[in-house]
C-alpha cells in the first residue's frame, strides 16, 4: 500500500484513494490546506509585516535629523570613547523623555551620573529612577531605617579610593552583573518610557563578554512595548540585537584670550589662564540601522554643546 503524503491526506479527509476530480499540485495544495492540523498554520503570504517603530526625539536636533530619533520597542546602542559626548546624548534623551512626562530609568553601571549635569540639561528627577550599581553586592546591613534613605557625598567626597573600605571599591564585573540583572527586572516590570543602561565606564574587554543572549533577551522584552532601550558603551556590544547603533566622537571647543572660538587641539601652547572650556562638538555616525532597508550610513553631523559648571 502506498504511504505517500497525498494518500495520507485522502485518508484523513475520509475519501477513497482513487477519488480525485482534480489532479496535479493544485489538488495537493488544496487538500493539504484542508488537513485539520494544517488549518491553523498561517500562510506566508498572509503574515503581518511588522510596523515601523515609533520614533522619539533624542533631544538633539542634529542627531534626530541623522537617525530619525530613537525607536520605541527597540534597543539603541550609542558607543564612543571617553569625552565623545555619549553621556550628553544620554542625558539629553532622558531629559526629552521626562519632558514628555514619561517615566524613565537609568541603570548606572559605574555610578557616574552627575545630578548637577542632569538638572542642567533638564532632566525631571521626579520621573527618573536612578539605579546605582557597583559597590557592595546586596543590601547594606546597617541600613535598617524605614525612612527614605538620604545621604550626602560631602562627608566622603574627598576620600580617595585607597581610603575606602574594601567593600566600597567597585568591581566592574560585579557592577556589570548588577546592571544586567537590574535592567532585566526593569524591562520585565514594564511601563517605562525609556530604560537607559550606562556602561560607559565599563572597559570594553569586560563589556564584550556580555552574552549575546542577554542583549537578545532585552530586545525581546521591549519588543511591542513603547519602551526605548538605550545603552551607551565604549564599542558596539549588542551586535545584531541593536536596531540602531550610533557611534560618537567629538572635539572640545575652547575660547582663547581674544574671545575667538577654536578647537582645543589647535591651541595647546597658549597660556591656560586665558582659556575657557566651551563645550564639545559631537560627531555622530550611524554604524547600523535595522529600521530602514538600506546599507549602514556614514553620514556625520555635529552639534555644539554648552559646557556646564555649577
Amino acid at each position, binding site marked *: 500500500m502506498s504511504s505517500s503524503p497525498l494518500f495520507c491526506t485522502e485518508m484523513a479527509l475520509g475519501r477513497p484513494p482513487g477519488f480525485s476530480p482534480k489532479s496535479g499540485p493544485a489538488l495537493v495544495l488544496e487538500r493539504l490546506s484542508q488537513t485539520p492540523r494544517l488549518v491553523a498554520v498561517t500562510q506566508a503570504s498572509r503574515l503581518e509585516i511588522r510596523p515601523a517603530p515609533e520614533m522619539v526625539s533624542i533631544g538633539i536636533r542634529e542627531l534626530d535629523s541623522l537617525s530619525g530619533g530613537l525607536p520605541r520597542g527597540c534597543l539603541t546602542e550609542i558607543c564612543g570613547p571617553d569625552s565623545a559626548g555619549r553621556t550628553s546624548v544620554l542625558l539629553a534623551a532622558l531629559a526629552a523623555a521626562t519632558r514628555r512626562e514619561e517615566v524613565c530609568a537609568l541603570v548606572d553601571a559605574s555610578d557616574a551620573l552627575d545630578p548637577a549635569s542632569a538638572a542642567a540639561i533638564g532632566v525631571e528627577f521626579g520621573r527618573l529612577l536612578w539605579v546605582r550599581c557597583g559597590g557592595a553586592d546586596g543590601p547594606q546591613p546597617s541600613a535598617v531605617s524605614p525612612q527614605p534613605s538620604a545621604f550626602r557625598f560631602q562627608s566622603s567626597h574627598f576620600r580617595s579610593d585607597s581610603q575606602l573600605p574594601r567593600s566600597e571599591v567597585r568591581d566592574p564585573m560585579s557592577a556589570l552583573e548588577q546592571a544586567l540583572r537590574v535592567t532585566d527586572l526593569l524591562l520585565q516590570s514594564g511601563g517605562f518610557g525609556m530604560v537607559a543602561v550606562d556602561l*560607559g565606564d565599563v572597559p570594553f574587554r569586560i563589556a564584550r563578554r556580555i552574552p549575546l543572549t542577554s542583549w537578545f533577551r532585552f530586545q525581546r522584552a521591549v519588543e511591542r512595548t513603547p519602551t526605548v532601550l538605550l545603552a551607551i558603551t565604549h564599542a558596539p556590544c549588542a551586535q545584531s540585537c541593536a536596531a540602531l547603533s550610533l557611534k560618537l566622537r567629538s572635539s572640545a571647543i575652547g575660547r582663547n584670550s581674544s574671545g575667538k572660538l577654536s578647537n582645543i587641539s589647535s591651541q595647546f601652547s597658549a597660556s591656560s589662564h586665558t582659556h575657557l572650556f566651551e563645550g564639545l562638538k559631537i560627531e555622530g555616525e550611524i554604524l547600523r540601522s535595522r529600521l530602514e532597508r538600506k546599507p549602514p550610513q556614514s553620514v556625520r553631523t555635529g552639534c555644539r554643546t554648552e559646557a556646564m559648571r555649577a
Partner: protein
Amino acid sequence: MPAFACIFVPDFPVQALLRVEPDLRSQAVAVLEGKAPLEKVFAVNEPARRAGAGMGMTKLQVEACSELVLRTRSPSREKSAHAALLDCAQLFSPCIEDASCDTIILDLAGMESLFGPLPKIARDVAQRVSDFGFEANVAVAADPDTAVIAAHGFPGVTVIPEEKEAEQLGSLPVEVLFADSNDPDRTQILETLSRWGIRNLRALAALPEVALSERLGQEGIRLQQLARGATSRALIPVEPPPVFEEAIELEHPLVLLEPLAFLLARMLEQLCARLSARALATQELRLQLELDDGSHTKAFHRTLRLPVPLLDEKIFLKLLQLDLKAHPPGAPIAKILLSAEPARPRAAQNGFFLPPSPEPEKLELTLARIAGIVGENKVGAVQMMDTHHPQAFQMRRFVPQDSRPPKAENFSPSCPQSKDETVTTLRIFRPPVSATVSMRDGVPARITCPKRKQIDGEILWGAGPWRSSGDWWEREGWSRDEWDIAVQQESGIALYRLVRDLLSGRWFVEGTYD
C-alpha cells in the same frame, strides 16, 4: 418586616486556631488553657469530642486520646478572629451587635432589596463566613434572641418564618437558652427543669406562665418567652474599630524564613479579606516579631510603606520576604503580629493618551528586588540640595509623578537656557581619583593617576582655576580649585575636571566631560 441574622461559631477557640492552621481542619484538636502543669482543655472540636476529649480534662487525660492535636489558647488569635467575624458581618449590614466573641447579630431590615430574599442572604452570609475560615451556624428570624437560639441549636443555615418560632424551636434542648455557660443560675435552673421532666423548648413553652413564675420567678418567664420566640428587643449596634491585626503565637520558635513565609501568607490572606470586606486597602504594613534567643525575648519591627494603597496579598508577601531577606530578624521567632494601616483604595483610571507609566504594584515589587541587588540606598530618585557644594544631593523614594511638578520643588544649580541647547555633562568618578600633578608657572602641566592608567601624561590644554568654597562655618567646610584639562589618550583627547582640595592640598580627578 423586621429580620435578624445570627452568626454563631461553635468551638470558637478551636476555630480561631484552625483559621490560621487550616491543615488541622480534618484532625481532632483540643485547645488548652492554664499554666503548665495545670493545663486544662478549654475547647475541642467535633472529631476531638468523638475521640473522647472533653472540656475541663487535664492535659494528661487528653494525651491518652490517640491522634489528638493539642494547642495552647491564644487570646490575640481569638481577638483577630473575632475582628474578622465583625468585618464579615459588616459586609451584609451596617447595624450589627457584638453579642459575644462567637456570636454576631445582624439587622437585616431593608436588606432584601439589596441582597435578595432572606434564605439567600442566610446562605450568602454562611458562604462569606466560610471564606473567612470559619464553620459557622447562621440563623435568620424576626427576633434577635430567636435567631441566636436557632443559631446555637441548629447546625448550618436556618431560616425561621415569622409566627412559627415556637414550632421551629420546640425540638431544641433547654440548654440552648443559656448561651453563656458561666451563668450562675444555669445549673440550678437546668436541674429544676430536669426534675420536672422538661427536656426541650416545646415542653417549656407549654408550661403555665403563672405557675412557672411562682417557681422560677421572672427568669423563668423570660426563658419561656425565649422558648416561644415571643421576645422583642432592639439591637445594641457596635462600630468595629478600623484595626486590622493578625497574630500567631508559635508553639516552637521558627529559625528559618521559609516557614515564616507560609505563615505570613495565611495572615496576609486573612488581612486582605478583612480589608476587602470593608472596601479598604492598605498603604502601610507593620510586622512585629517576638524573638526568643533563649535567655530573653526581644521585639523586632519592620514597616513597609507603600506609595499607593494596595490590596494584593501576593505582592505584600513578596515585599515582606524581600525586606526580611535584607533585614533578617537574627533570632528564632516566637510570635508574629502583622497589622495593616487601612486606607481608601486607589481609584485607578488612566486615560488613553497618557504617557506610559509603570503599574504601582509591579513597580514597588521591582524596586524592592532591585534594592536587594544593589542595596537600599542605591535606588530611587535624585533630590538636589540647596547648597553650592558640588555633588550635594540625596536619594529619595521613587514615586513617579502624575503631573508636572512646580519648578520650586527641584532645586537645580543651573537651568538650560533653551530646550534645544545641549549641555556638556560630566561623568563623576565615585570616589574621586587621587592624582599627582606637576605645576608649571602656576598651571597644571603633568598628571599621573595610579588608579587610572589612562590619565597619565602631559596636560595638553587647561582652563582654570575655578575657585569655590563653602560651609566654612561647619566642620565639613570645603574649599577647592577646579581645572578643566585635556589629556592625550590612545583613543583621542579626553577632557577631565581636575580638583585641588585647598584644605588638604591634594589633587583629585573628579570626573570626565562626556
